[in-house]
């Protein structure tokens, strides 16, 4: 192991530090491997043939990896349908969130209007509510959407948006957190940008759409990634409003899959892998945005 030759102040602790690093690498690697073991074990189990499942001690490596558990989860476990549902729901929520929160964030950061501070505090206060407090009334509101799911004009006699895509999507759109995040980003842009456009007679929407938004791609990416990940992994809301098998999201399908059949660990781990892969791939591809977004939220003070 070599240590990069920095020019540094000669330090009495320098020699200790070399020893420290010799100690750190193995320890860190051990911790990192134990962090990964659950994921590796999930994949290994999912790829094992059924015949090898009950070997004691378990075979860590078999010669006959197979996709049979994945095909079973995919077809018989309906994970194809669950995955498609989750894709529709999460991409819709993400798209709508981007539109709704960037417009609002822009209004809070760049436009001059009365009551701006009051509204901003309202938005932030809503963000701080524990989601649970609204759970039951939101369920009743979604059930009472007029003229949907057999409801009359007053929202009675039917099921409204329960067990439907709009019911899964709309209550998760519009987060104060993303408004806050985008507002902070909009504030960093120079004021002259819009003033020039305003003098040229652009509408406020055009200023926002053509001048400001193109400069905000990194912040929008953070919002898109967080929003997609959050809605993909959401569980309690789908659990509460979804009744039919074909409307299940992948998380709900996974949780109920376990309770409905005798546990077949190979198939269950294959389903778990299917539920996990999309967000993990997103994270690995765009991890610098995740890190930036988390840093933005945590270091006020």
């Amino acid at each position, binding site marked *: 192991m070599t*240590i*990069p030759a*920095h020019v540094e*102040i000669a330090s009495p*602790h320098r020699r200790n530090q070399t020893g420290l690093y010799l100690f750190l690498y193995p320890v*860190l690697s051990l911790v*990192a491997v134990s*962090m990964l073991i*659950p994921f590796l*074990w*999930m994949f290994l189990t999912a790829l094992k043939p059924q015949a090898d*499942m009950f070997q*004691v*001690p*378990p075979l860590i490596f078999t010669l006959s990896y197979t996709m049979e558990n994945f095909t079973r989860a995919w077809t018989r476990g309906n994970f194809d349908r669950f995955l498609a549902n989750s894709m529709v729901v999460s991409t819709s929520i993400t798209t709508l969130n981007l539109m709704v929160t960037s*417009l609002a964030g822009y209004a809070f950061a760049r436009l*001059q*209007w*009365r*009551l701006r501070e009051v509204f*901003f505090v309202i*938005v932030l206060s*809503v963000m701080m*509510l*524990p989601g*649970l*407090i*609204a*759970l*039951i*009334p*939101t369920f*009743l*509101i979604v059930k009472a959407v007029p003229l949907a799911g057999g409801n009359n004009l007053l929202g009675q006699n039917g099921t409204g948006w329960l067990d439907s895509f709009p019911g899964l999507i*709309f209550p998760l759109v*519009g987060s104060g957190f993303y408004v*806050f995040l985008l507002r902070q980003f909009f504030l960093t842009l120079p004021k002259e940008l819009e003033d020039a456009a305003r003098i040229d007679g652009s509408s*406020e*929407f055009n200023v926002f759409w053509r001048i400001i938004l193109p400069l905000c791609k990194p912040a929008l990416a953070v919002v898109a990634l967080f929003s997609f990940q959050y809605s993909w992994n959401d*569980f*309690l809301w789908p659990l*509460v409003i979804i009744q039919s098998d074909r409307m299940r999201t992948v998380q709900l399908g*996974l*949780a109920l899959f*376990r309770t409905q059949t005798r546990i077949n*660990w190979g198939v269950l*781990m294959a389903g*778990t892998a299917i*539920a*996990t892969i999309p*967000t993990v791939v997103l*994270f690995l591809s765009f991890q610098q945005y*995740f*890190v930036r977004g*988390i*840093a933005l*939220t*945590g*270091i006020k*003070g």
Partner: protein
Amino acid sequence: MSITTPARGEGWPDRKKGKGFGITRQERAAALFILPLMVLLTVFWIVPSLSSLFFSLTNYSVVSATRWVGSENYLRLVDDWLFWRSLLNSAYFTVGNIPLLLVCGLALAITLNSARLRLRYLYRVVFYLPLVTSSIALSMVWLWLFDPHLGLLNLLLNAVGLPSQPWLQSTQQAMPSIIFMSVWGGVGGTMLIYLAGLQGISEQIYEAAQVDGATPWQSFFHITLPLLRPVTLYVLVTSIIGSFQIFGPIYAMTQGGPAFATTTIVHQIYINGFRYFNMGYAAAQSWILFLLLLGLSIANLRLMTRGLDV
């Protein structure tokens, strides 16, 4: 909803440019820009939160006629030992979870903050990986690891000559097992927030301390910890709020068992509201949860907006 009325009033299309009611061009634009957000927040957050107080004073259930019951639900809560048990379990989980999250997260952050450590970006990614995975998927994986007969944990214990443990199937070990899983799953988040905080501390302070002969331990206790206090406060507040609302792993792994050893407040709210359809009673429970977390939520709001021109 009275709160949105001013926005609507301003936003109502008044086609005469900038004239009438003293509304400026920017004000009209702002009203339209925040309208979608305010409608969504009003319909799905503000109205539900306020009306849950109303529901908690009724015997609302989807199936039978609704009757005003006043404080009956709240009085019933006092005698509901299962509710007290769930409060206790939530507190147990929180108290077990948070010190470990903070200490391990800080230790990892300090280690990975060193510029001389190779592969530190790789380590960060590995530690953060569980946080992008759903609680249900993680629960399934750990259910398998904790399996008393074929699970990896018992196989490892047996391999070094130790007896198998019942893990989630014992009233004693179920909650510690869930705490263990949560620390494994959450430590990467604490680590990243601490890392961001550490990068805000100037290297020069440490160099000055070193010149004055401070040991690394002294630097840690007298420089690092005090300067990270706002970060610690933020992590503490947000993770207490999060821990008190744990639900996914409980639902997916233990269903609150064995013998109610892991039933939490949110699990009770779910069971009462959506399994027994005692929605009035469940609303009362969620109001108690809200009041418990209110102080922390206000603290959180203050922390986020401190130093901002709100």
